[in-house]
């Protein structure tokens, strides 16, 4: 049904690649730093891809060489950080169950619609991981949703491997047993390797091996990532589908460096998670109804509220479609269920940033951090706010006034001829632009003046 598919990401991006010496200044907006106080009429200066200065407009002199974005009347804040996502890949569930040597780098499709939508929503950092249906699923990777190749997009690789307790035939206990067995196999392999290495050194010391010979055998390439996991050299991202698997997950947390990625219906597990005392990643369904077996009455459940009350930090996820794909919806859902507004915002910024080990890079606006920011037309928790501009590493990568999808969906000239042909291959510019919609549909959507952009 979606006829936007042919309109590829490439068409979105009009900005020329920034050179290293570029200075970008975003001025006039309300700067929401997340970690510090908000600044009205502030300026954010980005130099060499990093934030050089944040201050009141009156206190900053903008270099004359700087490219200036006027954000007057708008909100400037860090781009969102997603701690766990399966989006943007071509096939994310490997059929084989034990494949820790795989990497999402081979599955990420830079042209995926997912990344286009992410930019449109103001997402700047995404941790892409293998799917939930593989026992030991391979390495994830942190990317920014912009770039022509995976290398362009990469923010950090080797972010850990994905594990899942989701029963894959044979039920819950079987899955738990499989995971224990897989980890035990790795430990045995490591022990054997160490034993052989020690024997080699002994023999060498005894003179049975020529002194110039050294131990050259490396760890098996297919086992290396799993070895790193059991040696706590790398993180594991464990998917816990239901409360029933939570006890096992907590047990595993004692042996491995794990981050728990929770399934939707996890509310009964909050006391256990409180005991664990680590930040967790939530499913994108954060508001659902449970029917009381006895009274048949429905009860609303909101895990973020329960976790917030229990003092457990959490990172929010975004859905791959529907309302939960909008950050403002997720934040609004938290707030209407009683979660503190600041805590909700942190769940899409600082908490996931810290989980990814990028707490000093992304998730907040502070001097020295990466130059990632979004400019919204208004409060980030309002449905009527739109992301006008996204800046990643000091480079403007999204502008709403140039967004072909929004131009199309908001086009004023709605003659049937303007519909792109169904399934019509490579016609990225056939629709809205060929239509000569000079007013820049998106900007005019709220009856607001066309934004100057740049």
């Amino acid at each position, binding site marked *: 049904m979606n006829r936007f598919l042919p309109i590829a990401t490439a068409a979105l991006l009009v900005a020329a690649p920034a050179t290293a010496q570029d200075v970008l200044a975003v001025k006039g907006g309300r700067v929401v730093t997340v970690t510090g106080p908000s600044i009205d009429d502030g300026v954010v200066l980005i130099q060499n891809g990093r934030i050089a200065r944040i201050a009141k407009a009156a206190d900053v002199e903008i270099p004359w060489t700087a490219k200036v974005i006027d954000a007057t009347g708008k909100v400037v804040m860090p781009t969102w950080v997603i701690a766990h996502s399966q989006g943007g890949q071509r096939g994310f569930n490997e059929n084989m169950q034990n494949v820790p040597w795989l990497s999402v780098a081979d599955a990420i499709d830079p042209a995926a619609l997912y990344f286009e939508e992410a930019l449109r929503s103001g997402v700047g950092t995404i941790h892409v991981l293998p799917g939930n249906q593989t026992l030991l699923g391979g390495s994830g990777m942190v990317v920014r949703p912009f770039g022509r190749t995976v290398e362009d997009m990469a923010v950090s690789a080797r972010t850990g491997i994905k594990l899942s307790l989701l029963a894959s035939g044979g039920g819950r206990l079987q899955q738990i047993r499989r995971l224990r067995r897989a980890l035990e196999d790795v430990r045995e392999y490591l022990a054997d390797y160490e034993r052989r290495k020690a024997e080699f050194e002994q023999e060498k010391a005894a003179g049975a091996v020529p002194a110039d010979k050294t131990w050259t055998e490396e760890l098996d390439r297919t086992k290396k990532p799993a070895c790193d996991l059991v040696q706590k050299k790398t993180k594991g991202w464990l998917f816990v589908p239901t409360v029933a698997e939570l006890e096992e997950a907590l047990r595993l947390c004692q042996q491995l460096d794990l981050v728990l990625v929770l399934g939707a219906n996890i509310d009964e597990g909050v006391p256990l998670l409180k005991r664990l005392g680590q930040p967790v990643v939530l499913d994108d369904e954060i508001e659902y109804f449970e029917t009381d077996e006895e009274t048949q009455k429905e009860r609303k459940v909101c895990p973020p509220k329960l976790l917030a009350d229990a003092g457990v930090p959490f990172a929010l996820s975004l859905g791959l479609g529907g309302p939960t794909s909008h950050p403002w919806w997720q934040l609004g859902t938290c707030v*209407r269920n009683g979660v503190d507004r600041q805590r909700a915002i942190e769940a899409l910024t600082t908490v996931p940033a810290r989980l990814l080990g990028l707490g000093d890079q992304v998730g907040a606006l502070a001097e020295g951090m990466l130059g990632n920011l979004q400019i919204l037309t208004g409060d980030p928790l309002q*449905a*009527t706010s739109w992301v006008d501009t996204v800046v990643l590493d000091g480079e403007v990568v999204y502008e709403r006034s140039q967004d072909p999808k929004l131009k199309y969906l908001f086009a004023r000239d*709605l003659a049937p001829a303007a519909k792109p042909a169904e399934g019509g291959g490579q016609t990225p510019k056939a629709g809205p632009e060929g239509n000569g919609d000079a007013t820049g549909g998106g900007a005019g959507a709220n*009856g607001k003046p066309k934004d100057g952009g740049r």
Partner: protein
Amino acid sequence: MTVRTRWLVPALLASTAALAAQGQATAYLGARILPGGGPPIENGVLVVAGGKIVAVGGQGTAVPAGAATVDCAGRTITPGLIDASFRGGAALADLNEQGEEVTPHLRALDCLDPDDPAFARALAAGVTTVHVMPGTRNVIGGLGCVVKTAGAEPAARVLKDAASLRIVMGAEPSMGNRAIRGGRVDSIYYRRPTTRMGVVWEVRKAFHDARQALEQSVGAAPSPPSPGREVLARVLRGELTAYTTARSEQDIRTALRIAAEFGYQTVIDEAQDAYVVADELAAAKVTVLLGAPSAPQVAGPGSADGAEPRYATARLLAERGIPFVITTGSNFAALDLVREAMFAARNGMSVAQALDAVTIAPARLLGIDGRTGSLAPGKDADFVVWSHDPLDPAAVAESVHIDGNPVPASR
């Protein structure tokens, strides 16, 4: 506002429930009142007694002596929302009589379960009145009814037992049927229609027969009464409004054409492609129901109809002066009605228009604006106290009142 005070209000309201039942006046003070179809009232006063609204106005509005007062400072009060196309309240299989394709006389009211969780869910989200039509699997499905989402007794909840006649265009009514190609015919599903043409043919035949019967009845011997035909005759005489579900451009045009052919009044339901046929809709002076504007995909099996929703539709209809109503409709992905209005506002409609499209506009369309749809003296005291502006994603209905009674917020 702290969480603590937020929970205080429902507690207060619960204590006023008994008073409201006895007909004693209750005044809700200090809220921002969006009365529906009128300008907002800051720091407003809403006085309710005997299940009816007694007065609504600004700060100076007289509060009767002895009235209980509820402090609603910081809250927003709106009329109870009205969902003009509500899928729920009954099992889907019970809303679709598959024995025949044309069943104008069947009543959705007959299979409503007053305790259906869908009502409780709608109520908790501020919806106090819904219009439930028969399902979309029949060409002419039957009579829709208008009911409140809560009330002391099921019968007292019914506002209209026959508010509409549902007609369905497009691929859906023919989907379950199979063509007879010889061999064994052992199912009721071997029958017409199996195509769009067949669907239109069934509608045309039904109305043709009804018109024929109407014309014959002058002078000639009356043809044997047929309940379905009598319902269609009411539509032809303008006593009952047809609601034609037509999602794609093609189906909307067909719906308008048949209505014009037989001269009956119709509403276009689920008109996803309305933006393409705005001129025709304006010329035909029909009202348009926009089902689930939040959903990027067309409802259920109707996606085969080839309709293509666009963000601009609601705004465009508003600009063209085409009357429209926002509903949840038959889309399984629909959100709470208030969130659908929120998405319409997100996509460029004014907040006032979006709110009117779920309050006074559906009330007028369904002919119940004398009782509900806005906050005005004499109307039923159906209203909602919201924690925030209702179109804020953080808004929750702190209390919902039907006939003046705060309905216990069980969730």
